[in-house]
């Protein structure tokens, strides 16, 4: 279903990394892990953002300074200001029946939905290993939040300033060698997700990825966010896709379309 934006007051802003701020709103959106909202900055733009931490009273949205709108948002929006929130939209993460232990792998601003999933999984008594990847120590987000939930946290940085030096997918390889894992979930740079998807499929472990495509309506009408060759909509059938299915799409890890619909190689 579709909704109009609701103007919500920003209650708190946390600078969680040099380029990511978390905006806290007092509202229970009743979103499921993996879903997203459209965040409207009047006079500027409206952009899709994943739901991060949520509880009865609050919802947290982690926003990276990634371009025109998000940069302005970081600069101009203060505590007490309002943002328009439209949603939640999209598909959700699924935990396999009887799962005992899962891995979540978040890269950069892909980490917020992993935190939301970790909340859900731990509440169901499922053990969670959280692999958080970033370029360096300062860019790691939500480590304490995952720990608070009782997750086993493994860090990975490009420069080795925290945890494993190299790719978070290498940390995953090691985990999969050592432990029995019932589900793998990832959100982050698409090439990382392709790697994770392939590992999961190769090991026959249930795996889901969360994709990003350019969005306009957010509720499945405009066709801006469709994937080749199935034609599915990332705002409706996605953003969460089963890895095996995602890998059937020739554009996964290869290309995406911009606001005009023009193909842009990754």
């Amino acid at each position, binding site marked *: 279903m*579709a*909704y*109009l*934006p609701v*103007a919500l007051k920003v209650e708190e802003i946390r600078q969680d990394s040099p380029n990511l701020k978390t905006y806290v709103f007092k509202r229970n959106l009743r979103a499921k892990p993996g879903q997203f909202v*459209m965040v*409207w900055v*009047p*006079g*500027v*733009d*409206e*952009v899709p953002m994943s739901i991060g931490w949520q509880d009865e009273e609050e919802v947290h949205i982690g926003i990276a300074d990634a371009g025109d*709108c998000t940069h302005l948002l970081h600069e101009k929006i203060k505590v007490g200001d*309002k943002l*328009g929130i*439209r949603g939640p939209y999209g598909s959700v993460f699924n935990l396999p029946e009887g799962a005992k232990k899962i891995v979540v792998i978040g890269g950069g601003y892909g980490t917020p939905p992993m935190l939301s999933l970790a909340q859900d999984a731990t509440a169901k008594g499922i053990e969670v290993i959280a692999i958080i990847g970033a370029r360096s120590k300062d860019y790691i987000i939500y480590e304490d939040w995952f720990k608070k939930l009782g997750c086993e946290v493994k860090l990975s940085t490009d420069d080795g300033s925290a945890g494993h030096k190299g790719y978070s997918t290498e940390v995953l390889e090691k985990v999969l060698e050592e432990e029995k894992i019932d589900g793998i979930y990832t959100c982050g740079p698409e090439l990382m997700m392709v790697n994770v998807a392939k590992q999961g499929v190769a090991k026959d472990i249930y795996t889901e990825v969360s994709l990003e495509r350019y*969005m*306009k*309506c957010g*509720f*499945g*009408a*405009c*066709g*801006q966010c*469709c*994937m*080749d*060759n*199935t*034609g*599915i*909509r990332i705002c*409706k059938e996605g953003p969460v896709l089963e890895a095996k299915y995602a890998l059937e799409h020739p554009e996964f890890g290869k290309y995406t*379309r911009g*606001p*005009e*619909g*023009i193909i842009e190689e990754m």
Partner: protein
Amino acid sequence: MNVSVDFCGLKFPNPTVVASGYLGVTGASLARCVEHGSGGVTSKTLFLEPRKGHPNPTVLTFQGGVINAVGLSGEGVKNAKHEFEVYADRCPDNPMIASIGGATIEELIECAEIMNEYPIDMLELNFSCPNVHDEMGRPFACDPQMTADATAAIRKVTKKPISVKLSPNVANIGVIAKQAEANGADALTVVNTMGPGMLIDIDMRRPILSNKVGGVSGHALKPIALRCVYECYQNVKIPIIATGGIIQAKDAIEMLMAGGSLLGIGSALIYYDMAAFDKITDGIRDFMKKEGINDIEELVGMAHGDMIDHSKLDQNPD
């Protein structure tokens, strides 16, 4: 019972056609609509060159329907061949109506000429988008002479069937329809969005659409679209793609009775998603069965006339 439609020499397995601008950015997306029951499709309006469109918010729903100011974004006719090829390859039995637009007649001509080389079945001339007024001035379809000139110019450069898409925002849609017919249109698409309209967020104290105003469609448009189809049917002989607020089978049947031969399906997708096509086609079939109607063509224009022949109503009541 027949629900297939012969339209300008093209065969549509059922009367539903995806309306331009809905799920029409990629060929794969339109092919998926066919896989879910649409009889044919209309691609999103393309101009010659790529267009970014307006910033978000661009598409919103409200109690009475849908409002949009996408701003005619698209990759441009020049660059879109691959999307039409993908579609034609996957859906050879479901006609592709390619929608083109242009700020000038010259641009439209160039679009039509390029489209001659693409695997498409019909051209739809979008003379009627209300969302790019600042940029392009009054749409062609708001003026009988401009409609006539633009239609005639494109008629000269293409052999493909042409449907002219009309605007409801006129006092004389019948006159405009006649101009399109007289200048070579093979069909009409009736109608585009109405307005423009506006939504304001009272907490933000601002219009919600970034473009401030946008075309209104869905429920709110239905009675107006219905009247437009009825009026065009009275004024022309060429067939009509009835579009605007067709959400349930009942709306679709009303549109057929008003004079539509094909049905543009848009906002129904927001309420019923991909099930919309089958729901509408099945509902039409159920009605035909109940009323003892064997061919959908009998429904077209049925609402025109004076006294009713009561002996023909409700032949197979359930």
